[in-house]
């Protein structure tokens, strides 16, 4: 059966309830989304262009419950407070399934000029601002039916707004918790608006405490105004039963700098899509990704980075270490539009297959419609350097330890480049534990995740 049908049916039967628990711009966008879903009629299947190794249809196929009635599902928020990256000082907020839960300290300490609140509440309280951006950065043309499905069912999420010229002193940390006694699909929506010359860092931590199957459908929209600096780190540390479908859309204007890190430490099935458009000139984009897979994990990163202004720069680096029977996929496209001059765009994808059953699929692409460019991409898939392993064993380091050290070293350039104070150090520790196959306990969080 077509996975999409159940969600369309669900929506049509409960349209009023969906809207009643949401507001303004979120509700206004549903009609168009429904029309698109009905017209196309299906989610992407495995093997289609851009979805070579991941079937979105299969991800959405299980009969997930969607909490459209906004029933309070008990979530152990205590875990949230433990999750803080100890060495990093952040403003902490949480999203329980898809409901925004601010912490006391966040409400008390948030500085003037920075707004962090529930998206639904924002849509009701400041409709002008939300309407101006919501659904405008994410385009149907790129996001397709998965985006439309999120738009159709999204009722809440996070709204972050940074006023012109405001530089947030501390990073914002949003902990996404998935927890439910029944199979659940959380539909999250995040809108980040960084006005002219503002500066903000945001750390998203995805945790799943589900023993049963859960799916997180997430759409993040980022607006980076002229000269704005936005740094987003999106870290996933969930469980083997968790599927995650995430789309990040960003729009950059003159002189803005956007840095995105997608870190998949532990997961079930993950598909991350990044759509970034440099609309203004002299924009700078850094997009890094890291994935560690073992068991039956599947990690698929997809990026589309488009340069349409002059003098833009972009740098992409994705690294995978795949062990066990895990599979990875990476597809990245750099587009330099006609008339966009003096752009420099680089992309690199490096992968290590650490076991016989691990699989990697790579598709780096360049679409260049202008001659004044410097663009390159590189991709490698291989294994650990045998000479280095031999060298280390010669010096008495056991094989497993040597392998672990090399894998960790392999990930170092991503870890060192996250750009949030204290997080690199923490990540180094987490990655080491991850490679050691020790029980994962993100920071001090009480939740245990079987590897």
């Amino acid at each position, binding site marked *: 059966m077509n996975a999409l049908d159940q969600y369309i049916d669900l929506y049509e039967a409960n349209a009023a309830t969906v809207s009643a628990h949401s507001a303004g711009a979120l509700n206004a966008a549903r009609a168009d989304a429904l029309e698109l879903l009905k017209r196309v009629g299906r989610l992407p299947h495995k093997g289609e262009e851009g979805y070579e190794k991941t079937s979105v249809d299969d991800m959405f196929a299980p009969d997930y419950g969607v909490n459209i009635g906004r029933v309070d599902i008990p979530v152990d928020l205590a875990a949230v407070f433990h999750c803080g990256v100890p060495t990093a000082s952040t403003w902490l907020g949480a999203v329980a399934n898809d409901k925004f839960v601010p912490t006391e300290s966040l409400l008390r300490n948030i500085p003037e000029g920075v707004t962090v609140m529930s998206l639904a509440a924002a849509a009701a309280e400041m409709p002008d601002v939300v309407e101006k951006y919501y659904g405008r950065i994410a385009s149907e043309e790129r996001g397709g039916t998965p985006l439309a499905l999120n738009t159709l069912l999204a009722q809440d999420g996070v709204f972050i707004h940074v006023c012109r010229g405001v530089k947030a002193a501390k990073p914002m940390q949003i902990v996404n918790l998935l927890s439910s006694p029944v199979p659940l699909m959380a539909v999250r929506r995040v809108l980040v608006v960084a006005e002219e010359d503002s500066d903000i860092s945001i750390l998203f931590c995805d945790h799943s405490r589900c023993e049963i199957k859960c799916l997180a459908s997430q759409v993040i929209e980022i607006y980076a105004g002229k000269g704005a600096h936005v740094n987003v780190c999106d870290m996933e540390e969930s469980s083997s039963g968790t599927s995650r479908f995430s789309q990040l859309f960003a729009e950059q204007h003159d002189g803005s700098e956007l840095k995105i890190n997608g870190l998949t430490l532990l997961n079930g099935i993950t598909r991350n899509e990044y759509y970034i458009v440099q609309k203004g000139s002299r924009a700078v984009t850094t997009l890094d990704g890291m994935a560690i897979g073992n068991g039956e994990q599947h990690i698929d990163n997809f990026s589309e980075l488009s340069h349409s202004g002059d003098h833009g720069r972009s740098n992409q680096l994705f690294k995978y270490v795949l062990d066990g029977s895990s599979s990875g996929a990476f597809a990245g496209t750099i587009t330099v539009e006609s008339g966009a001059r003096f752009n420099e765009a680089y992309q690199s994808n490096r992968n290590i297959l650490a076991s016989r059953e691990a699989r990697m699929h790579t*598709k*780096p692409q*360049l679409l*260049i419609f*202008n001659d004044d460019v*410097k663009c390159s991409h590189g991709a*490698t898939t291989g294994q650990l350097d045998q000479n280095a392993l031999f060298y280390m064993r010669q010096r008495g380091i056991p094989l497993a330890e040597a392998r672990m050290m090399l894998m960790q070293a392999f990930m170092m350039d991503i870890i060192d480049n996250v750009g949030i104070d204290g997080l690199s150090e923490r990540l180094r520790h987490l990655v080491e534990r991850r490679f050691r196959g020790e029980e994962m306990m993100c920071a001090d969080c009480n939740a245990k995740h079987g590897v």
Partner: protein
Amino acid sequence: MDNEIIDKVAGEGDDYKYGFVTDIDTDIIPVGLSEDVVRLISAKKHEPEWLLEFRLKAFRYWQTLEMPHWAHLSIPEIDFQAISYYAAPRTRDKAKTADEVDPELLETFEKLGIPLAERNQLAGMAVDAVMDSVSVKTTHREKLASMGVIFCSISEAVKDYPDLVKKYLGSVVSYRDNFFAALNSAVFSDGSFVYIPKGVRCPMELSTYFRINAMGTGQFERTLIVADDDAYVSYLEGCTAPMRDENQLHAAIVEIVAEDRAEVKYSTVQNWYAGDREGRGGVYNFVTKRGLCRGVCSKLSWTQVETGSAITWKYPSCVLAGDGSVGEFYSVAVTRNRQQADTGTKMIHVGSDTRSTIVSKGISAGYSENSYRGLVKVAPNATGCRNYTQCDSLLLGSHCGAHTFPYIDVMNDTAIVEHEATTSKISEEQLFYCNQRGIPTEEAVGLIVNGYAKEVMNKLPMEFAVEAQRLLSVTLEGSVG
């Protein structure tokens, strides 16, 4: 500062010197495609029953297919019923000596620089000349036959060596492979057949020259090369067509089989008519080329210089099935004016310890679109495989596009696969350096482009390298050399 000169250099070129038409009496069947046409082609060529069956099977399968649209090309609708699928210069039987060849034809090939009279030739090359749907003349056959090498048109091979043809035809490119492979399998007219027996090193370069002459026709040739154990052959292919306002379809299949320790080198200089500056006319070059390295330690090397065709859509591939086999692909693809190219290669590593190298150089100018599309696949049981891919694009002018679509699929942890690609325009520093030393910009562009393509040019056999280098110069630079 030099943009105008680069635009001028890239946009203009000399006239296509192979654009003439030979006025020769041609036997051409009415346009249209049906089972009857397939039967008619088969009957005209006096083919055995099994081959007719093969064609009909392919035709029936083709009818179930739709024209694919995944390539980064904008292809106008092709009316497959508006093409004549068989056109042959009306001569007596196939010429045995150059004197028997119709003087008009002889002159045509002389004009194209392909001497069919053996005394006129450099001793180093044997030629099979194909005009429209039939092979006109194959030179040096006796000398080759003395070593056991079979080099003839595929129609003759069907008659003279049916077992060999039956064994290998369709074994690498099945008629179910793709839309154009199915079409070709149904209506293929002529092409070359090469068989190198065990342990023989072919003493000369073998070459096929394809020429489309008749109007309203397509060319659907089929080439089959088999190198038996320990054999070696170097094969060259060249093509041209007259200048016409209409688009002509060329959908060929090349199949290569390399047995144990055999080596095949296949070089192409493709110079079909590319259409005029506004993109009117030109040949659609939709070709399926694939080689199967079946034997252990066999080697297949593709080298191509693509300068012609309105639209090019081809991926010469290697299936590396034998353990330790080697696949190579070297390509220079030049597009200018309104030309479009979507070309690259596939390296399928099935055997263990197989190695492949891909070097692709794209040059786009004017309003053209040039794409590299490639696949490197390592099968689960193929251990110790190695691939290195490098694809660079050079852009001349601000209206053209250069794109790269590599697909890399690794299913074995012992494989090492590398891919690198760069896109840029001619560097100002290099131009400045040349200018400083008194080299005018036009000439400097020529120098830089030739230097850029050198890595691939070096892989061409000598006879071709000179021709290819000259072609590259005239294609891009008009009078600059």
